[in-house]
């Protein structure tokens, strides 16, 4: 008994007891499957029959036109979501944090509501809103401005717009929360000092708030880049399946899903997934390097 107590109060052992569940989950549910995926990407996996094929899966991937479409779509989606979902919520959060803001709590709650809606439900709502009928919501909006109804989800640009709009609808509130948490940490005195020094509203935002929440911006940027590249469910729900007209909504993970589950090419799908992993890692690394998270020792 005393031995157990001694162990529990041991400053050296205690932290490892605390992180043990994480380490176990990480090994069983991340390391093991990822290693298996790497092995599978060099194989042809059929039920009860596994053959080693070397780099064949990767070679096929290089010449795959549909894969290139999927990569293009994922990158365009990532670009637009990052472009909108990084600065816009920051400005909104700054306004919500202002002492001049009325009913700040209420608006925060409203903007956060969409993320409580399951992505499947959200996708269904947006699919119906972007319907082809003249009476579908987005077409009634067009009619309001005197424009003809269009087939939103059958054209490349409007389809992408629907995806990006849905992402903005869902994630703005979440990013606002991230930014607000950081903005709240800036003491009021600093704003007052800046005001006394003659800084106007924009200058206080640009030269005081933005630098101080930079770590949060980088965090949100990192996860947004990755979430953009790995998007799948949104597209799957918006087109009620993995097959959009001329693959305008096909993403990298969507292609992985199509190859792995719909066409039962697990080995090839593994290669698709690993290429995504590699690309996402490289981009994140470059971005963290540029923003200065890595390479800190040099300054």
């Amino acid at each position, binding site marked *: 008994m005393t031995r157990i107590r001694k162990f529990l109060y041991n400053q050296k052992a205690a932290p490892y007891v605390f992180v043990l569940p994480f380490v176990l*989950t990480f090994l069983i549910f991340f390391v093991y499957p990822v290693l298996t995926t790497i092995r599978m990407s060099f194989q042809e996996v059929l039920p009860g029959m596994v053959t080693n094929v070397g780099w064949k899966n990767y070679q096929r991937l290089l010449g795959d036109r549909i894969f290139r479409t999927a990569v293009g779509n994922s990158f365009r989606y990532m670009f637009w979501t990052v472009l909108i979902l990084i600065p816009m919520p920051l400005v909104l959060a700054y306004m919500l944090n202002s002492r001049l803001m009325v009913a700040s709590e209420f608006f925060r709650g409203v903007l956060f509501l969409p993320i409580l809606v399951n992505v499947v439900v959200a996708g269904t709502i947006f699919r119906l809103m972007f319907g082809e009928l003249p009476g579908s919501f987005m077409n009634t909006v067009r009619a309001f401005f005197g424009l003809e109804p269009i087939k939103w989800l059958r054209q490349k640009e409007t389809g992408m717009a629907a995806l990006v709009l849905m992402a903005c609808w869902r994630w703005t509130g979440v990013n606002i929360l991230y930014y607000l948490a950081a903005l709240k940490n800036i003491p009021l005195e600093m704003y007052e000092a800046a005001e006394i020094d003659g800084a106007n509203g924009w200058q206080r935002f640009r030269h005081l708030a933005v630098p101080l929440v930079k770590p949060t911006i980088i965090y949100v940027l990192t996860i947004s880049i990755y979430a953009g590249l790995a998007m799948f469910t949104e597209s799957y729900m918006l087109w009620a399946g993995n097959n959009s007209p001329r693959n305008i909504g096909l993403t990298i993970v969507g292609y992985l899903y199509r190859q792995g589950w719909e066409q039962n090419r697990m080995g090839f799908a593994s290669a698709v997934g690993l290429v995504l992993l590699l690309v996402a890692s490289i981009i994140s690394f470059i971005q963290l390097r540029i923003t200065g998270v890595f390479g800190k020792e040099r300054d």
Partner: protein
Amino acid sequence: MAARKHTSMQASVRLVMLLFFLLISAVVLLPFAAILLASFKPGDELIRFGLNLRLDWDVMSLANYKYLFTGITRTGQYLPHDYLLWYRNSVILTVMQTGFTLFVSSWVAYGLAAYRFRGRNAIFTCILVILMIPFEILMLPMYARPAPWGFWTVFGGSSCPLWLMPPPSFSSASSCCPFLRTLWTLDGWTGPASTVFSSA
């Protein structure tokens, strides 16, 4: 005089911001309004005219809700379905997942926040690595090959990753990592967890 000018400007800023956020809120709430309205309309109405904000009292009724809870359709037919069973399944999964996630996250996060120990940075790196791995990559091997020790089966087949792992339907990497989220909260954004990012 200058002071009064100052306060009147503040009042107008206040008003503009209020109007601005009222507008945004209206846009954000639009899809909710649309789907709420649609829930009162018959399904063929939705297929014929699409989802919109048209208020049409003649076709709107509580018939969909009646069917949902009693299984009696608008024509008086009895077509039972398992809505309440699905609901129960969702509740069970949610409780299990939330309970487990909360417990493990706070447990691990406490260890990381309260102690300085060898390998701590390695753990942070692992957390970042989790953020980088799409759930679908992990699904492939889980589906194609059960773990050698039959782990998935022991823990109730495919539901296992669902409650040990972050929910797959969350597309944001941030929500994919309960550890990180709890950690961030515990740290109050200024502690050791954010040092990973705060050197910028």
